């Protein structure tokens, strides 16, 4: 799967979970850039991403991400 496809799917997941209208993620996006990306939304996002891509993250992996690009790196390694 290409990075562009992943980010497109992530946009859909974020829009569904965060429910604050259109989301346009980039590789450098962080929680500070997305309205509604709070701690509870973060848990629900991780659950939705794991289910969508049929993968499992570790807590260490999640804590290591500094932006959406690093999240995508992690998804691609699965």
């Amino acid at each position, binding site marked *: 799967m290409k990075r562009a496809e992943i980010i497109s799917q992530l946009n859909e997941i974020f829009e569904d979970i965060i429910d604050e209208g259109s989301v346009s993620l980039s590789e450098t996006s962080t929680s500070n850039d997305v309205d509604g990306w709070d701690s509870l939304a973060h*848990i629900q996002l*991780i*659950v939705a991403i*794991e*289910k969508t891509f049929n993968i*499992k*993250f*570790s807590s260490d*992996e999640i804590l290591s991400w500094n932006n959406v690009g690093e999240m995508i790196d992690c998804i691609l390694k699965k």
Partner: protein
Amino acid sequence: MEFQLNEMFKHQFTVTLDIYNHFQMCSNDRNPLHTDEEFARAKGFPEKVMYGNILNAFVSYFIGECLPTKNVIIHSQEIAFKNHVFMNEKLDFEAHVSGVFEAVNAIEFKYKFIKPDGKIAAKGLIQIGLLK
């Protein structure tokens, strides 16, 4: 993790007069479908229809009181109503662990309420967090 994928939990609930009265007081919903026998019969029901959201309260009880740990918090709860429930019907509640998300200490349950005739009264999905 205290929960295993596909682990099943069961409980039985009944919408008693006491529960009905308390829910009515709490919600202040006096819609005649729930309060007027004649109105309900005129709409094709055999008697007053119980408030569907009483089942949401039963889900709250299940999460808060029936699990093997009290260290829980509800993140989200979805319900779809399939068949009407009437006073004093015994509902078999079944929930199974449909997802374990260790990285974020979250568990998902799929659940259903089954009426005495075997029909589904409601079903849905609950996501909870496990408190540390």
